[in-house]
């Protein structure tokens, strides 16, 4: 059997150390364009391993401006076969709901997809919402925060899912949506051959006319949430008291305070 796997990826800022313009209150974005969301590399690695085992193809899917092409090329340099960029001004300003809707419509258009993989969350917005939203719109099982994926692509697969202090084993059949934790694998580096190949491949650009989409459900219009304001949190320093003297003296002074706070 051969698998048709879609990996949804996102380009994120190079660094999370963003500044806010004190006057306009807008985020000051650096001139550099972004990098691939780190968890998405684990999703790509998981897809490529399944392809190595079962055969088939791995298609990258991303929604964003034209410069996301860089990240898609990087994914193809890891060994993915094909890439589609969902790009249009009409898609702009999308929150997770509108993003998940457009991704799901693109996956439906591709047709006969067996598995959709995503990173567990993006490191910029940190929502982890898009995977489950895509699953709902496709009507497929979702298995989120997966750390291990084994089994038979046709007969049934088993996922290990790590919760805060629990572990779940989940059996499922394809098609399904799986979001991937970094514990699952070590993403491969692009080989020189794949890097070369990636520049020969064509990235398909799809806009709202390429897909069957309801214009009221895409972009800003299709996004229920509104960001009212953005600010940098003030990290208030605690007023620290320095314990002085030898370690013994310091500990004695600390114990007095701990007793006062009912900690001893």
């Amino acid at each position, binding site marked *: 059997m051969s698998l048709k796997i879609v990996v949804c990826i996102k380009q994120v800022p190079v660094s*999370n*150390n*963003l500044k*806010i313009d004190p006057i306009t209150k807008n985020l000051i974005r650096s001139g550099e364009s972004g990098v691939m969301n780190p968890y998405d590399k684990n999703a790509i690695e998981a897809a490529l391993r399944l392809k190595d085992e079962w055969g088939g193809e791995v298609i990258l899917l991303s929604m964003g401006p034209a410069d996301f092409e860089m990240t898609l090329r990087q994914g193809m340099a890891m060994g993915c076969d094909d890439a589609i960029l969902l790009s249009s001004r009409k898609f702009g300003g999308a*929150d*997770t*709901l509108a993003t998940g809707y457009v991704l799901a419509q693109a996956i439906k258009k591709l047709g006969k997809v067996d598995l959709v993989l995503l990173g567990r969350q993006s*490191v*910029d*917005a*940190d*929502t*982890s*919402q*898009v*995977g*489950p*939203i895509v699953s*709902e*719109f496709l009507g497929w*099982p*979702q298995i*989120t925060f997966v750390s291990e994926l084994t089994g038979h692509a046709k007969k049934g697969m088993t996922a290990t*899912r790590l*919760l*805060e*202090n*629990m*572990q*779940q084993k*989940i*059996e*499922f059949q*394809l098609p*399904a949506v799986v979001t991937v934790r970094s*514990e699952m694998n070590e993403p491969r580096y692009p080989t020189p051959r794949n890097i070369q190949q990636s520049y020969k491949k064509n990235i398909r650009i799809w806009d709202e006319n390429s897909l069957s989409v309801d214009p009221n459900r895409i972009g800003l219009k299709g*996004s*229920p*949430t*509104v*960001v*009212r*304001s*953005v*600010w*940098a*949190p003030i990290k208030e320093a*605690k007023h*620290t008291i*320095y*314990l002085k003297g*030898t*370690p013994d003296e*310091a*500990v004695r002074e*600390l*114990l007095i*305070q701990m007793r006062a*706070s009912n*900690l001893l």
Partner: protein
Amino acid sequence: MTDQEIWVYAEKHVGMIQPVTYQLITKAKEIANDKKVVVILFEATDKNLEEKIKEFGPNEIVVVKDDRLKDATDSEIASLMAELADRRKPNSILFGATVVGRSIAPRLQAKLNTGLTSDCLNLAFDDDLLIQTKPSYGDNIMCEIVCPKHRPQMASVRPNTFEAKKDLNQSVIVTKINDLFFKKAERIKIIEETPLLSKSDSIANADRVIALGRGAADEKAVRLAEELARKLGAKIGVTRPLTDHPKFSGDDQIGQSGNTIAPKLLVNLGVHGAVQYTTGIGSAELVVSIDKDPEAPIFNYSNYSYVGDSVSFLESFLKVIQ
């Protein structure tokens, strides 16, 4: 309007309501004004977890009892929640920003075609509008997010952000619902749910934590810290570099990519205090830090600081509390 409801989804694992559920009930009551706080509980027929929930004093607990709920998948819970929401039209629905909460909530969001804000650090009401404060870019930026035109308003809240307080004075209505349509999820089955041994006493819920950093990573420091932890009834947490130590793993890590902790006492040993670490300790009450570097940023997050060697400090501590 007085009949508006704030829902809290009751998350449970192996028969235990998760602490974040109680934290959400208390917070919801604080901000409710004249809205009702309603807990939504799904459980097997032999369970009575509503009795535990009552202690935190919501106005109402809606209980759905069904043996298929013993190992229900996230999408099945989302379907049931959607059905309930269609009937009662809540103003808002709150989840813990746990792995499961972050899986059920967006699936439900897509069913209800509404907005959801993940991993909130604060919630407030402006009339009927839920003001949701959420960090972005690795906690470097805070965003205020609202969902003005869609209902319900949905949010997940980071565990240990709010304190749970019991309220035994509230009379709690328990409403049993048994006529929901259970839409069985196809092609997926949870076959096992087991506590992770190394995390069964997770540092995220510990009252006392001793944290080890690079400056307290040698065998002697680890051994002494374990001894002190036993004496104080504390759990040991580590910074990222120590997750490679054979005794520790990512489960024990404190900080942005690990656990957010909220202990009453936190003792940092040889922890320098990178932002990735300090974002995880913002809710700790009494913070004591020992580090050799007088310029270590950790001292800015500490109530008590000692510039010196962690091993000597541990030896003195063990000797003095004998």
